[in-house]
């Protein structure tokens, strides 16, 4: 089956910043992404878990973006502006996609 090179970017970010991140992506014409819920985690700012929350103040989500390799930098620039001052993690993996015309 015919596949094509692409990049898979995974951004773990505070839930309250989700809207700002996806808006920055859309503004950079990155229109394809998927948002996953996150149950908990641990990082430099300590451990947290969804069951310890009363408010949307401290939850996180994961935004996954599959993108053509040549558009990666545009995406990272847009994302970086939003995550920069916030806790969160950005990783990039090489991948192959079916139906490349979709990306």
């Amino acid at each position: 089956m015919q596949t094509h090179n692409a990049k898979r970017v995974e951004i773990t970010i505070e839930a309250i910043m989700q809207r700002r991140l996806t808006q920055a992506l859309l503004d950079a014409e990155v229109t394809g992404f998927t948002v996953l819920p996150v149950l908990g985690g641990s990082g430099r700012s300590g451990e947290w878990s969804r069951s310890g929350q009363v408010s949307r103040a401290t939850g996180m989500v994961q935004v996954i973006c599959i993108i053509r390799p040549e558009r990666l930098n545009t995406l990272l620039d847009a994302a970086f502006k939003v995550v920069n001052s916030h806790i969160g993690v950005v990783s990039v993996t090489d991948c192959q996609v079916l139906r490349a015309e979709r990306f």
Partner: protein
Amino acid sequence: MSDIFSLAAQNLSSPIILSFALGALAALARSDLTIPEAAAKAMSIYLLFAIGFKGGVSVVDHGVDANLALALLTGALLSATLPLIAFGLLQIMTGLSRVDAAAVAAHYGSISIVTFVAASSVLEGSGIASEGYMVAVAAVMEAPAILSALWLVSSGGASGRMDKDLWREILLNGSIVLLIGAFVIGWISGQDGLRDIQSFIVSPFKGVLCLFLLDMGLVAGRGLRSAGANLRPGVLAFGALMPLVGCTFGLAAAWFLGLSLGGTVLLMVLSASASYIAVPAAMRVALPEANPSIYLTLSLGITFPFNLTLGIPLYLALAQAVIGP
């Protein structure tokens, strides 16, 4: 004086407080007891809807006091002023950075609606009436404190990130919209509406509040367990002192407005309580450098239980002493 103690004792042995204590103990003992997030959110929606609706209906019954507008304005002023006092106290009592102190201060200018609900429930249990529009005052007091805190930060040279989106998020946050919306619905549909949904929003109210406070206890206990040890004594002391300062301002404002005994207690409770929903979210966006575990632990782990157990009976006794029964 003995009255305060008997009221406090009665308050402490109510299922509501005991449920909170159960949650806190379970969390401190690291039990795996949890209330699903969706259930906790559903209960908070129920409580906001019920309290807003009942407030609206009672405004129909008793008419809008000429003081409504004045009460709203006073509420907004209290909310904007209290952070300045809280900030001053924090500077004196703690070594918190300017940003952390401002973020904490914002919480204490704003309000905790669950504390308000618990106080309403105590008043109702003691047969003390209050102005229905106090729920509107509660809604108005949510946001101004955030502005004061951002001003405190920027006047210190740094600056918070306040954008148009954040404005909308603060003013149209779910709790405010639901509280005000239910208030208006109650106002429009009046006693007829209340009759329709009475056995949903009135009868089971206290029971739902018990389970909700069980969850609050779990969350507060978990917060204390993980962050409590890092809080310095000065910070902890602030969490119990500031409510007393706040309630004094609330008492003065209520006296100025000529509120009833019940209304006075509620305004004291609003002033004494600290936000743990709207303000933390706003702070994460506007002041991401401020450490959330400080303000969340203080507000939810210290001030909330303090108000719930000792504060409410104390404010009631104070109000009775000043305003008369």
